[in-house]
């Protein structure tokens, strides 16, 4: 630790302490909600109203503004959980455990939304609700990984042991993430290839792309909002015998 400057170490310990994190969450939340509403409002208006109709898929393609950002979030949140798992295992940081477990229900929700909206898009376009292709199957496995993290944490009584167990599961499961990402290239199947994240120009019209990026950014803010809400409950549960929580309960009552 001696190679890290003292102010950084102090900052790290202060931010990482549960009461500090709790009050920081309270300060951040109104801003996050405000920015989310602006971004989602603009994204939905652009996506559902302003963006032109697709010449091949008609208006069914508008599901993209939920489907693709939700799918991106399902991967993004899992990577965050794996990073938090690593931090928790290496430095035994309490807040990393809290962020990891608080992210799981939101990640599971985005994975569920990606699968369901994909199904609702697949039916009119592919003629089927579901195929066992590589992209869909690996995304379904991701949903099971999230549910596995949630139920493993719930099944172990001692929360310190539970945190270590889910940290390891989150790290092991991260191998699925590149598989999901490259699945459309490795196995040529029904699911279309990437249209945005390509090395050359994205093959999507700019009026369609802007709302998509707005929604993707809005979902990042949504994740922060929902995760902090869950994290606040988790912190209160874990710290309920601490003096600061008792004081908080007194002022609220």
């Amino acid at each position, binding site marked *: 630790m001696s190679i890290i400057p003292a102010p950084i170490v102090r900052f790290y310990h202060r931010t990482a302490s549960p009461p500090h994190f709790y009050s920081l969450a309270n300060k951040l939340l109104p801003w996050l909600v405000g920015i989310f509403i602006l971004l989602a409002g603009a994204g939905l208006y652009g996506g*559902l*109203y302003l963006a032109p*109709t697709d010449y091949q898929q*008609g*208006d*069914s393609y*508008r*599901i993209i503004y*939920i*489907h693709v950002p*939700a799918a991106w979030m399902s991967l993004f949140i899992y990577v965050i959980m794996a990073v938090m798992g690593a931090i928790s295992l290496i430095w035994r940081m309490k807040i990393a455990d809290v962020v990891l477990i608080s992210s799981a*229900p*939101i990640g599971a*929700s985005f994975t*569920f*939304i990606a699968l*369901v*909206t994909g199904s*609702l*898009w697949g*039916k*009119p376009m592919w003629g089927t609700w579901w195929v066992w292709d590589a992209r869909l199957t690996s995304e379904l496995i991701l949903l099971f990984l999230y549910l596995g993290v949630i139920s493993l944490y719930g099944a172990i009584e001692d929360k310190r042991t539970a945190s270590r167990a889910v940290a390891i599961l989150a790290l092991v499961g991260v191998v699925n993430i590149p598989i999901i990402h490259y699945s459309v290239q490795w196995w040529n199947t029904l699911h279309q290839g990437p249209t945005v994240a390509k090395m050359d120009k994205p093959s999507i019209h700019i009026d369609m792309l802007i709302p998509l990026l707005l929604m993707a950014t809005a979902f990042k803010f*949504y994740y922060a*909002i*929902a995760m902090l*809400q*869950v994290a*606040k*409950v988790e912190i*209160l*549960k874990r710290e*309920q015998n601490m003096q600061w*929580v*008792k004081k908080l*309960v*007194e002022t*609220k*009552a």
Partner: protein
Amino acid sequence: MNSFAEFLAMGGYGFYVWTAYGIALVVLLLNVVLPLLQRKQLLRELALKQKREK
């Protein structure tokens, strides 16, 4: 898009588009509302516990 009815019809794909948006909305709302209710409940329980201990 001229009328509101046309907007809702989504070129014949209204059912698929609005079901997708509806399900997403419900799931995302639940993720924020449930922890809010849980926190209220927990704070109530903790307040009761503290009263008894006094």
